[in-house]
């Protein structure tokens, strides 16, 4: 075998491996979609779509919307969608605003206690969330914030990790001379932040907002601990509870999961460039 053929074979082999991997990663999604339209009896009868005499040998007429009908009629999926949208957007905006302000202040402003605050942030980044679960619950109880959205939004609006990321971003992409020039022009500190620093931090703003949105949208343990009224539950809790109540209703459970996953999947596919760059920036710069 000469070198060209062996190169061709190895290229084909590599593409083959990747195609098999891609199919393996896509199959659970395909299964999710297919199952949400199937009857229970067809779920075990075929790997993806039920076979029959329809187009491409698929029994299209055996697929139906019963799972979706049941989902929207019998479960609080609509209030879950509204709750998740509200919680995720409010938390994403407030966490991004507060973290960018704090990160910028730690990177660029001189004030007493700055190094103490910086050490606080760096130390807090490594505190694992579950440690704060029980004491957080006690504090929310004492403040009367249990079973309210405030009890979820306020703790999530001050992430140490966000401040850490924005501090890094401000140090590397906001030049001191620009801030000095704005000060000489008589610009107030907050206006400097809004009009000079924030535009320069834009890539990190987009990425961090998306990451926070996704984190809140998929958060299960937080609402499970803080909320008590079923009418307030976000999607993660609503959908997980289907497994208890509708244990055998495969189509309904998968319809609920698909309805929850689809909006973020679409959002992130549209904004993927921003998201992936933000995801890796912590590792590459840190």
């Amino acid at each position: 075998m000469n070198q060209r053929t062996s190169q061709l074979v190895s290229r084909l082999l590599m593409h083959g491996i990747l195609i098999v991997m891609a199919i393996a990663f896509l199959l659970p999604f395909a299964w999710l979609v297919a199952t949400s339209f199937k009857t229970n009896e067809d779920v075990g009868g075929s790997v993806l779509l039920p076979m029959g005499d329809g187009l491409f040998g698929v029994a299209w007429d055996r697929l139906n919307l019963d799972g979706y009908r049941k989902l929207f009629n019998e479960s609080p999926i609509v209030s879950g969608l509204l709750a998740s949208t509200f919680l995720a957007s409010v938390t994403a905006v407030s966490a991004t605003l507060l973290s960018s302000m704090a990160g910028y202040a730690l990177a660029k402003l001189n004030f007493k206690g700055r190094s103490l605050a910086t050490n606080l942030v760096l130390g807090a980044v490594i505190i694992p969330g579950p440690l704060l679960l029980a004491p957080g619950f006690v504090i929310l109880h004492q403040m009367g914030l249990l079973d309210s959205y405030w009890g979820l939004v306020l703790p999530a609006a001050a992430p140490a990790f966000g401040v850490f990321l924005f501090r890094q971003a401000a140090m590397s992409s906001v030049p001191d001379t620009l801030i000095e020039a704005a000060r000489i022009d008589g610009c107030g500190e907050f206006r400097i932040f809004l009009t000079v620093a924030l535009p320069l931090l834009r890539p990190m703003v987009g990425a961090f907002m998306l990451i926070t949105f996704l984190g809140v949208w998929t958060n299960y343990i937080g609402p499970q601990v803080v909320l008590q009224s079923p009418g307030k539950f976000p999607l993660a809790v609503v959908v997980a509870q289907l497994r208890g109540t509708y244990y055998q209703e495969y189509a309904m459970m998968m319809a609920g999961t698909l309805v929850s996953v689809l909006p973020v999947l679409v959002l992130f596919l549209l904004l993927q460039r921003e998201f992936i760059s933000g995801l890796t920036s912590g590792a590459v710069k840190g």
Partner: protein
Amino acid sequence: MLAPWLLLFAVFTMWPLAMAGKLAGSQTFGPGASTGVGFANFRDLAEDPLFLLACKNTVLYTLGSVFIQLPLALGLALLLNRPDIRARAWFRLIIFSPALVGAAFSSMMFAVILEKRTGLMNLLLNRLVGLDVNFPWLERHILPALIIASLWQWTGFNMVYFLAALQNVRQDLLEAARLDGAGPIRRFWLVIMPAIRPVAGFVVLLSIIGSMQLFELPYIMLSSSGGPENRGLTIVMYLFQMGFESGNLGYASAIGWVLAVVLIGLAVVQRKVSGDSEAGA
């Protein structure tokens, strides 16, 4: 400018942290009633068979995840970093996309995928290799089931980090090594590995930290329990059950501290190791 963040941080991170210290030394019955018990919670933990089982399960899961997932992620990253591969962006997107699903929702998917008789996994394996369609993933083989589910979810996420790291590999060095007659394996260990080591260390740490806090996947897949004989009980699940199902927030905090000390210890060790290697280079 720091004030709004600092206020919330103090109330919802520092205050809970201080209270976690106090709680760990108390026995509580719900958020209102508690009595001080000193270090009794930690002494009880050391002899609590369920806690030890949870630790064992969590550590085994973590090892399984790290040793299967990360090599796969790195392998895929190496493939997708080659300029002679077509449609790289598509492959990357497809393999990364499960990371967007979120643990609560992927648990729902895998709860159904791993069902006996009706689940995708058994149907597929039955047709491909003749596995019994009644293979009891969720009844007996829970740890492999958890490792498979998180393999699907997080491989692409780690791959993206490795891909970013591979951009630090100097092409001229690779070319020089090739001209000197170094094969692909030698090139990998001598040129690629040193260049991606800082990020690789970070990915390993991140993945251990994430795995050690496993909760939603087994909790939802096994219908709010540790499963048969608690084969799927994890540390955070035990913390949750103790604190919020039994109301013993003190005991839950003690579990939280054990977890925190281990994870922070690992982070410190990783920092030291990567710091030393940089100093040596």
